[in-house]
């Protein structure tokens, strides 16, 4: 073995170990973030957090019950906006789309996907908050829904496309019209994948704060109905984290742990469901 060869092998070994170290760093970052949040947040976790409202400024105690409900409402609204548009849009692209219309729709969807969340907030403020004259859960839900559209649309299209042509052709051969085929054969075959994609989309917008800052605003009380400002977990975390009160910091950690757990749980569920494969076509 010449010296040069030995050197090259050494370099090879070192560089490959470095890459291993990089991967290790990346993974340990996740575990560190998760672990720290769970530790810090879990320590202070108590029932009050889930059941009580915030107390006046400077007083300790209280919880974020209204923020949890507020986040749930916002996500519900977001799904009502994002899922139908994304789903039917995806159906259009996969089943009916032509070359130009398909291209235009795909392009604008990607465009929408790339819009920074703060700009979506500006847009929602302009077209929902100003005309209706107040901040509302509707505006917040609308902004989040806009962010969900690209994810659901592209995923629906992909899963529908992955259904084998033979299934479609079999249905058509048996005399079903196109829409019947889509509704009763193609979509059910892909629905598990679509549902998991929706779950991923919801998890993604659940943590968004910026668009909510000037749409849903914030609320110290329960927000009734849909047209009132509402508290939400991410906004509360932000508000509490930058303040000086120790008690608020503690609550911010708890809220962070809760939010992160829910988001990660949804992601894990979705990805394991996907990994197991899209449900096989029924015989």
């Amino acid at each position, binding site marked *: 073995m010449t010296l040069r060869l030995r050197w090259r092998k050494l370099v090879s070994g070192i560089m490959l170990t470095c890459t291993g170290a990089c991967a290790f760093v990346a993974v340990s970052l996740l575990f560190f973030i998760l672990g720290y949040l769970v530790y810090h947040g879990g320590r202070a976790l108590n029932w009050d957090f889930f059941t009580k409202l915030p107390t006046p400024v400077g007083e300790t105690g209280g919880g974020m019950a209204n923020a949890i409900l507020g986040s749930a409402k916002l996500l519900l609204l977001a799904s009502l906006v994002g899922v139908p548009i994304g789903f039917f849009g995806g159906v259009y692209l996969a089943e009916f789309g032509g070359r130009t219309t398909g291209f235009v729709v795909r392009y604008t969807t990607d465009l929408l996907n790339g819009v920074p969340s703060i700009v979506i907030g500006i847009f929602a403020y302009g077209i929902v908050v100003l005309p209706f004259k*107040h901040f509302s859960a509707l505006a917040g839900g609308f902004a989040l829904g806009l962010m969900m559209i690209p994810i659901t649309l592209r995923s629906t299209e992909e899963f529908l496309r992955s259904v084998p042509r033979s299934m479609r052709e079999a249905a058509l051969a048996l005399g079903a019209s196109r829409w019947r085929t889509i509704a009763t054969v193609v979509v059910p075959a892909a629905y598990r994948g679509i549902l998991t994609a929706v779950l991923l989309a919801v998890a993604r917008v659940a943590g968004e704060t910026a668009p909510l800052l000037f749409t849903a605003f914030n609320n110290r009380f329960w927000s009734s109905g849909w047209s009132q400002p509402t508290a939400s977990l991410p906004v509360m975390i932000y508000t509490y984290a930058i303040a000086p009160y120790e008690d608020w910091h503690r609550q911010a950690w708890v809220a962070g742990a809760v939010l992160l757990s829910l988001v990660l749980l949804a992601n894990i569920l979705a990805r394991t469901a996907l990994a197991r494969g899209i449900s096989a076509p029924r015989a």
Partner: protein
Amino acid sequence: MKKINGLLLYLCLALGVCTRAQDPMLVNGAGATFPLPVYSKWFDEYHKAHPGVQINYQSVGSGAGIRQLQSGTVDFGASDMPMTDEQLGQAKVPVQHFPTVLGAVVPTYNIPGVSAELNFTPDALAGIYLGTITKWNDPAIAGANSGVNLPSSDIVVAHRSDGSGTTFIWTDYLSKVNADWKSKVGRGASVNWPVGLGGKGNEGVSGLVKETPNAVGYVELIYAIQNNMPYGRVRNAAGSFMKADLNGVTAAAAAAAKNMPDDFRVSITNPEGKTAYPISSFTWLLIPTKISDPVKRDTLKGFLKWMMTDGQKFTEPLSYAKLPKEVVEKEMKAIAKIQ
């Protein structure tokens, strides 16, 4: 099947959430962080006394409060900075200012190893915020603090990153006492800061100062107290170094109280008066005088009356001074203007 079940679940959740709609009347307000501790206490107490009413107040800064009131996206605003004629003109409905409490803005600091109360001359404060005084042991500061061992570390300046009435009070004061500041920066809710880090709200600035060694910031008195942060004395127009407290603030308002204009817009920084604290201010609720919804109107009027009578007893425990009697009388008459 699963999809239908999921849909049903969604609907139930929606309905369950919607049935809460029988709820209390919700009034939305936004504005200053300066009086947030006392406002949040008031709205909480008022809700306890009148369960049918919820007043949701968000502390987003005086600038945001004024802006949102102008656009009509909130029912009332709050500000430590009186609205200018221009701003009043831009509002969709005429607005009346209602003073609520008197408060003080204090220079709070976090200097490792220094727990004593520092004395600040007006020029020292202006110099720090102009960036001309950069170290804690600068003669301009040390001169007023013989006996205190000030370190030679760099001063970390903290100010507001949002449009703030507290900033207005601070810059109003600095403009009155330092010509350099007046020409270079001026007074306003949002100024072109020569130096410093920005924090959001009084909470943000207190947070910054608390976490950063060698920092100095200007915050409303209660924020320094609630967070056990030291704050300094400021030299007033009569030449004495005053620590911010209820007496000092009340003394500062004494002259203005007697000559309160009808629209209640005054500035009481750097007043005459031997015991006055120089950086004091009223803070105002900005109430539209034409409210179309009769329930909201009565709610707001009811709250204002409560605030000026029962509400005033919650102010002193939180280190805000009560309104002078003459001002309260004048305000009661002004409530009638709200239609």
